[in-house]
């Protein structure tokens, strides 16, 4: 679980290198707290898809809003 979370944080830091891993709050909208735009978020979703070998449809983007969301999403997709 925490390994999964760390992996996702690692992906986030590639998208938002200015962010501080220790300060990412698990239940706050990532776009708001990291101040990233829709293009960054898409880059993040692409990175998630590659990392976990998932096909993530556009309608699922809202399920990747917070760090906790992302962890739950990957788990629900059976990785």
């Amino acid at each position, binding site marked *: 679980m925490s390994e999964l979370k760390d992996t996702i944080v690692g992906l986030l830091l590639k998208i938002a290198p200015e962010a501080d891993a220790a300060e990412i709050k698990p239940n706050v909208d990532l776009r708001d707290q990291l*101040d990233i735009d829709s*293009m960054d978020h898409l880059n993040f979703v692409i990175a998630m898809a590659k990392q976990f070998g998932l096909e993530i449809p556009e309608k699922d983007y809202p399920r990747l809003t917070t760090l906790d969301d992302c962890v739950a999403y990957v788990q629900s997709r059976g990785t």
Partner: protein
Amino acid sequence: MSDFNMPSLGADMDEGEILAWKVKPGDSVRKGDVLLEVDTSKAAFDVEADHDGVVEEILVEPGHKVPVGTPIARIRQTGEAPAESKPVPAPEKAKAPQAPVKVAAPKSAGQAPHLRITPLARVVAKDLGVDPAKIERGSGIDGAITRADVERAAARHEEPHVVKAPPPPSGADKSKREGLRDAIAAAMSRSKREIPHYYLSQTIDLDPALNWLEKLNAGRPITERILSPVLLLKAVAHAIWEVPELNGYWIDGALNQSESVHLGVAISLHSGVIAPAIHDADDKSLEQLMAALADLVQRARHGTLKPAEMTDSTITVTNLGDRGPEAVYGVIYPPQVALVGFGAIAPRAMVIDGQLVARRSVIATLSADHRASDGHRGGLFLRAIARLLEHPESL
């Protein structure tokens, strides 16, 4: 005997560099004679004598930068006795120039004796970390160094010349932030000082474009999906074909229209906003534009943009995003002549075919340089964007 102080050559000037003295101790000067040239980092200015007199002493040599109000020479007024050898008390404090100093118009060709360089080239040189003094001879009028010369020099010396080398880790963020803040401050102040902006806005129905895009994306893997801002960029790039005078630079009192459409895309970083260019955006497919934008955003975040990308945008687009405000009326990035803004895409009440309906829409704005274009043409440009977005399949 009176001190001649570094004059203030603009409200935002707090220091000036002495480029050259045109007089030497012992010279008689008349009111209005050019005493020296001062560089304010934006342009070189001639500074004239404010009264008749004799130059007694030069206090600050060329190449030195001093704050406004610092005594830089001593000039004995006509009729005054020559200075005796007793030391003149050091000025207690920097003070404002004792009399209004007449300043000749800024020299657009920056004719400093040691360095002929256009103001644009000077700004670009600073951005690229090129020392213009090291460029032997410019290709401009009278050998003036132009932007192209600076860019060539930067390309030649890309490796050794990267002055923007990563600062030491401690306080690096802060200095980077301050550096970018300073650059934004300088460019935006210049814009509002020099560019007579006019502003237009138009609400554009995006339902057709977004419906089309959703259908397109549904059948594509994630790496091939197109984001809505890309459609907007493409529409802007094509609308420029219809109103080309919005695409280019205002330099030395004239519009230099650009044949290429290099779209500057404003990207917000923690340290400030930057607007690197997507080159030849009008020739790119939606897929190519999407890839270019994704790449640009990522490299902007990692600080790996190329100098050319940072300096050769011909028009800028600022999109404050799907969570942004309704509309943005931007400040033109000089020497460009237009900036297009998009606010948040949101459902709005629109009247379509006489019916009041809720449609997803965006407010597109144009900030344009009234020296280069007029509101009528600017309006045509916004209408062209709206029309192009009604038929997204043709983009």
